[in-house]
């Protein structure tokens, strides 16, 4: 990779991408039917984001 091709993502973008990719992989590995996969992916993504933002806010007092 050349020097100009580095990815610069914010915390939120990184978390979103991470949650989305892992949710898709989990959904495809653990469910067979397309509708079950979609439900699993959406639910897993929601929980990833909820817990991620929740932990972020829980750490907020320690940073000030």
């Amino acid at each position: 990779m050349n020097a100009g091709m580095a990815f610069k993502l914010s915390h939120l973008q990184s978390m979103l991408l991470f949650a989305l990719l892992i949710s898709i992989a989990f959904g495809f590995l653990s469910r067979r039917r397309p509708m079950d996969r979609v439900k699993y992916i959406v639910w897993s993504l929601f929980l990833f984001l909820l817990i991620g933002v929740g932990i972020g806010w829980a750490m907020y007092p320690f940073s000030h």
Partner: protein
Amino acid sequence: MADETAVQADPPQDSRRETMAFITGVAGWLVPGLGHALLKMWGRAVMCFLTVGVLVILGAGMRGNVFSSSGNDAFDTLGYLADLGTGTFYLAARSLENNGADVSHAGGDYGTRFLATAGVLNLLAALHSYEAARGRKA
């Protein structure tokens, strides 16, 4: 007598199935998604390849730490084992990261996690294909 013949014929079949399952698992580890592709599980094969591939590209692009075998402590060794989980993509990550790791900013730290997660995810997928080949899971 017929039952005895059937009993004698079973072990080689099981052994062959076990060997094929092992080959499937190793193939899935070496090339993400290949294990599922060998089992004709195309959707899972494509998604494994894409998710592990995107995580590796993002991780290397964010200048995450691609651990080597010459680690200084247990965490480096664990990171190396996790990174090795991506199979041949480990070599791709090393070649993509020409400028070396930079974990002095959050992006590099995220990159390290992306790479480790790609490895662990691929190991999970390889184990899934191994179990599927054994007929235990689909």
